[in-house]
């Protein structure tokens, strides 16, 4: 079932503290050539079957995933679970038409049935010369050794125990601590009718804690923090579970006694890091080529035009080492790229997958991603961030007489057509005379993408990636993404709150 096409970035929140250190990309080296997840001969046969009714392009996507999830609750490991899922998706494209079929039966007969089902999107019947695929080189922006699937469970469990103990000890007002460690080792292979065959192993992990604090009056506030990426267990030597859990406690406790959010237009300062979901919602989705081709995005037909203030340069970068949104190859077998989407306010590029690129006469930007073999690829973001400016973050804060400082965020959502987006603020403070004063609760930022980007008035020199926690949903498909932002001042943002703002906020 589909819902309103929209994006939701779940499992929010980041802060400038305890950010993972991202190293430089390793040079591509001779990775051991594992046996392909399915024999190349079989893939070639399936492509041939998918083309048999006259399709002009076909690809086969093979996925073998091993997942682990450990949950901690009430001082106990509540559950540990592990799963293995394998499957194959076959796609046939005929002009703008797509036939897609998947199977989690990997026997030849089931796969051939899937290929023939996908082929039926075309109806001419054609002579297909036999397809030969050969391996294409794959860059290496991450390689996790040992693979997360080979790490013993007690090591993963231990991360949760350590974080839990630290959170419980951090403050007497801590009422509940829950935590989760999740990982997946996903081995993919893509072969297509152009003769390309690419493989990748995509490890991904995440550790997070959720804290409820309660004060004497009975008021409850929550805090949430976590992170990870395409990284191994060594990541948690610097991104320590104790620090992660204490950050969740800090947020919950900081919001005790928060005042109601003032409602109406205000000057807003965003803290660096996770606030990048503002870009993700306000502009990123609107640049995805499917919305552009269909003319349903308000950014369609605006290449070369000014869509943001000159302080705004937005980059989508699939090549950041170990980052949550990075891909060595996308789910169509093309290398991940670094793309400048907006340069000093001018719209430079959209995000293309193969299908939409071809129909628009462009080349794919390596942005074709899918949740699993159960889905056809869509153009998606990877790691999307705002390039740094020159202002010192303290000067940005000092420039605001009255406003709202947004330090941590929940999720966001956008309506592609009218550009309306919302952005839930989990930790916010009033700014009075350039200084942070009281904590504020229940604030939501709402705006129209281009207007908000035009109102970006100051950009800090303190870029930060989020800690590796974002998941983006579109058309029922979730994919891991990264975001990032330096400190930013935006004027005249509508804040949804419960209290009528006292006086005008400038």
């Amino acid at each position, binding site marked *: 079932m*589909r819902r309103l096409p929209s994006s939701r970035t779940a499992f929010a929140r980041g802060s400038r503290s305890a950010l993972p250190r991202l190293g430089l990309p390793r040079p591509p080296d001779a990775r051991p050539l594992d046996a392909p997840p399915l024999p190349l001969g079989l893939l070639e046969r399936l492509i041939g079957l998918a083309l048999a009714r006259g399709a002009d392009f076909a690809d086969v996507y093979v996925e073998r995933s091993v997942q682990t999830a450990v949950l901690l609750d009430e001082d106990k490991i509540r559950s540990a679970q592990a799963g293995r*899922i394998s499957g194959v998706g076959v796609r046939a494209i005929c002009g703008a038409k797509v036939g897609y079929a998947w199977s989690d*039966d990997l026997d030849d007969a089931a796969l051939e049935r899937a290929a023939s089902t996908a082929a039926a999107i075309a109806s001419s019947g054609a002579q297909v010369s036999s397809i030969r695929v050969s391996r294409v080189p794959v860059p290496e922006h991450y390689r996790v050794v040992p693979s997360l699937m080979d790490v013993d469970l007690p090591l993963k469990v231990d991360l949760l125990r350590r974080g839990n103990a630290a959170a419980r000890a951090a403050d007497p007002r801590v009422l509940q601590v829950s935590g989760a460690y999740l990982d997946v080792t996903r081995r993919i292979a893509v072969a297509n009718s152009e003769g390309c065959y690419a493989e990748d192993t995509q490890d991904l992990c995440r550790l997070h804690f959720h804290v409820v604090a309660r004060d004497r009056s009975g008021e409850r*506030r929550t805090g949430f923090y976590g992170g990870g990426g395409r990284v191994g267990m060594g990541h948690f030597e610097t991104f320590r579970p104790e620090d992660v859990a204490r950050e969740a406690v800090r947020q919950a406790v900081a919001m005790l006694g928060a005042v109601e959010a003032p409602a109406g237009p205000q000057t807003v300062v965003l803290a660096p890091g996770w606030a990048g979901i503002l870009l993700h919602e306000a502009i990123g989705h609107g640049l995805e080529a499917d919305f552009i081709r269909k*003319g349903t995005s308000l950014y369609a037909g605006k290449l070369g035009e000014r869509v943001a203030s000159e302080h705004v340069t937005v980059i989508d970068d699939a090549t950041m080492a170990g980052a949550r949104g990075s891909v060595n190859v996308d789910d169509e077998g093309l290398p991940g790229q670094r793309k400048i989407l907006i340069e000093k306010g001018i719209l430079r590029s959209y995000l293309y997958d193969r299908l939409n690129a071809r129909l628009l006469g462009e080349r794919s930007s390596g942005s074709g991603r899918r949740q699993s073999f159960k889905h056809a690829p869509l153009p998606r973001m990877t790691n999307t961030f705002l390039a740094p400016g020159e202002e010192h973050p303290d000067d940005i804060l000092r420039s605001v007489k009255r406003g709202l400082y947004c330090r941590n965020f929940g*999720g966001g959502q956008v*309506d592609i057509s009218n550009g309306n987006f919302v952005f839930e603020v989990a930790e916010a403070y009033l700014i009075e005379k350039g200084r942070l004063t009281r904590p504020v609760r229940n604030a939501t930022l709402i*705006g129209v993408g281009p207007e908000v980007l035009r109102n970006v008035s100051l950009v800090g020199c303190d870029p930060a990636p989020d800690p590796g926690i974002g998941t983006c949903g579109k058309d029922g498909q979730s994919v891991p993404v990264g975001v990032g932002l330096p400190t930013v001042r935006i004027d005249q943002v509508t804040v949804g709150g419960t209290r*009528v703002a006292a006086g005008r906020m400038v």
Partner: protein
Amino acid sequence: VTGRGSDLLRACRWAVERARRLGAAQADAFAERTRQASVTVRNREVEQISQATGKGLGLRVFLGGRLGFAYTSDLGKEGLCDVAARAMALARAAARDSHHGLPKEAELARGARDLLGMYDPAIEALDTQWMLDASLEMERAARAEDPRVAGFESVGAGDLVSEVALVTSTGFSGTYRGTSVYMYAVPVARGDDGQLQTGYWVDARRRLADLEPPEVIGRTAARRAARMLGARKVKTKRVPVVFEPLVAASFVAGLAAAVDGDMVYKKSSFLGDRLGDRVAPDFVTVVDDGLRPGGLSTAPFDGEGVATRRTAIVEKGRLTSFLYDTYTARKAKACSTGSARRGYAGLPEIRTSNLYLEAGSTPAASLVRGLREGFYVTSMLGRGADPVTGDYSRGANGLWIRAGEFAEPVQEVTVSGNMLEMLRVVDAVGDDLDFRGSTGAPTIRFAELMVAGA
């Protein structure tokens, strides 16, 4: 899919037996098989056809108060051996918790019949040509309804046929099958000034005959898009706010997160210490009914084999029940409400089934007619409902109400409040209960909420 439940049952029995042999004190296995197809169209032609069959099995094992869980999409001997070995290994690494375990026999559903209205052979027999024709008709009807419909984000239809089996080491063995079919249209209207607005309309049913005709869905979606053209912010103010059924249903779903027995036990719900209290006017009743005929989430038993039932959460304004699975019920010294939702790739979790706010007796139209000024909300953005604190703040689109009539369209505003207070100020419930999924509601009106805009 039909009638092959026996092989799912066999796989479940085999996995449970294997776990017992490996030393599990108790075990249960949940397996499912699905067949699904979907079609989208674009510019009077097919855009995408997807078809698939999937299957899998999840195995829970209990070993001296320790829980282990593993799942697989491979139902062959090898896959099942592997899943049992992995579940046992995970149980050995888990902490002891005396509340773990299978439900008591008395709680289990008797028999395993298909409930009325869960399965429709007409859906089993649907082909993609039917979905294609229905989608083209929605697209045609939407364009015919309003010339300002400039395109579509998506238009499509699909179906799902599923079969489920559950076997426990305590002797429960059950299977059922279900069907569903859905259609949706998301047209984009373009105004003279170039503004784009989407409309959204959908229907999803267990039985083909219950589905709205594609023409109605197309036309409704087009009207919803076109009426938003010219939408602007309004000034920040407190006004009466009306939620249309689709939006009211999302409010009810937000409330439901706070009656999750696990959240309540962990003192993480704003409704946690209010059981038995009056939380809303007496014309507010909220029900979770796992047996609702034709309901999309209707099933004879939950993910642990416990009989499903009708549970009143709020009865005539009083908070009457929380929702529990077996584990949380034991901890909280309550009884399972048959609310353990389960797919093969996860442990059972507390979820609502068919959740709804009961219809009132006031004609829905008079909820608007009675207002001098107000905001009629037709769609929302963001989650914005915090079950811990009750804080509620979401982006909203809709129509302004002046002198009892719909006036100009409104966007880029938020509606905020606290759900406890919002429940208290519900001042009317319409007679138009509508389901567009598993959660339903009629039109509801709040005496006054904060609308933040310019």
